[in-house]
């Protein structure tokens, strides 16, 4: 979403932090088939550290959360079932993103493998890429301290 906005105009965007985003295709790699996963598999595959997944799974689920999850899943399918998790035209326009960009990716992301991070960097050569070891699809949750430090440093121009 952020990239779709940025390729149109960056007049109101100072800088961009991209955290394991979907949006492009990359040669020889496919996103995981998330729509075939059960809710439990989805949680397990979000995290590299399975202790975090188990903690998440142990939390009680309210009927409201079930509704939200189903609605999110529906919207994800509506937007990204086919073409799967990418906009086939976005890559042509990414050169228009001229503001500073930081890409953060978990090294062990099973949903969007780290090859996507490298492809993004090819398309936006000025972007700063940070790959976080021992980390899944959610660096902001799995490695929150490191993630916050580096985003704050980037945002303050350091």
């Amino acid at each position, binding site marked *: 979403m952020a990239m779709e906005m940025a390729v149109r105009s960056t007049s109101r965007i100072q800088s961009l932090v991209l955290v394991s985003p979907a949006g492009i295709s990359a040669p020889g790699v496919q996103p995981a088939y998330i*729509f*075939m996963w*059960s809710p439990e598999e989805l949680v397990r595959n979000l995290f590299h550290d399975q202790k975090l997944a188990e903690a998440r799974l142990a939390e009680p689920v309210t009927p409201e959360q079930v509704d939200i999850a189903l609605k999110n*899943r*529906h919207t994800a*399918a*509506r937007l990204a*079932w086919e073409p799967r998790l990418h906009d086939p035209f976005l890559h042509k326009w990414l050169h228009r993103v001229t503001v500073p960009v930081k890409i953060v990716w978990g090294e062990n992301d099973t949903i969007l493998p780290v090859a996507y991070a490298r492809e993004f960097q090819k398309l936006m050569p000025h972007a700063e890429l940070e790959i976080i070891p021992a980390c899944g699809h959610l660096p902001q949750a799995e490695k929150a301290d490191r993630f916050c430090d580096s985003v704050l440093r980037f945002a303050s121009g350091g």
Partner: protein
Amino acid sequence: MQVVLFHLMPYADLDLESARRHGTVWVKLPNTHFDPVKGHKLYNRYLDELEYAEELGFDAISVNEHHQTAYGLMPSPIVTASALARRTKRIKIAILGSALPLREHPLMVAEEHAMIDVISGGRLISGFVRGIGAEYHTFGVNPTFSHDRFHEAHDLIVRAWTEPGPFAFQGRHYRVNYVNTWPRPYQRPHPPIWIPSQGSKETIDWASHPDRRYTYLQTFSPAKVVQRYLKMYRDTCAAHGYAAEDRQLGWAVPVYVAETDERARAEAKPHFEAFRNVFLKMPIEMLLPPGYTSRESLKNVMKAKAEIFGEITIDKAIELGLVVCGSPATVRQAFEGYWREMRFGNLLVLCQFGTLPGDLTRKNMELFARQVLPSLKGLGA
């Protein structure tokens, strides 16, 4: 009542142990499980069984469409229906149905069905379905547009069959400047349209609408569920301001008839249980991708998950009315009883299911046709 012999053409030579290890025979079961030499024998055996139904006095024979699965070897029901159109003379041929949203273009469906109708001299019954959820994984077609595409494809097909061409069609999914289908169907205004469903309020509302009055078929559900949905169909017609005719209702169910109740149960058991517990089995995420059903329907399925996805024995299935099985007298009485409660004008019997071999399938068909069928035909007449 109109009685239809329905065939799924499963890959009956399937290695069941291997299939169980894979968890499902849909979408992901490697096609190395399929042996083309065995497939050749099966296709010809199954087509022979369908053709035999004409001799036995059934009113119609039926084929359907499923993809990338051992459950049914008919990715194109057009192929099987075409073969049957030439080898039969009087019996109706039902395609139940073509999966409209999965097809690249609905005009191809309009053309193919019209061809079979013309070749057979007006013996085609056209069925339209959305395809099951698993098939949206197979083709990559977006399931959240499934209802939309289905309705628009249906509108285009019926207009192509009934309005003089050429005319332009501007839809959200299909846009054509020259709709001008050759051949036009043999039957006027068009072949009867049947709508098979596993039970959905949305489908019932749509099929029962006074502009359509399509035959609604409830497939493979416990008798109580069949009764609930057929009643819902009648109630919906009443709310539309007309009384449903019996011909608008149908039930598709596996049937096994043998000399005695005990023998029927024993002979059908391994084959029915393979059908129910191996061929039909798939994870809920495969069966119901997002958007294929409403959120409410999806939550209902999740609640009944154990019941729907658990394994069951033939005894339990008979008790639930998921299969009708027994001596000719037992089967006759069961259907007469169900008919009095539901008044369905069409009964689709699946005489081959799962791994049921050729000799038992023929014996089943013969006993059913000779000792059950005659009394059913009189119902509602």
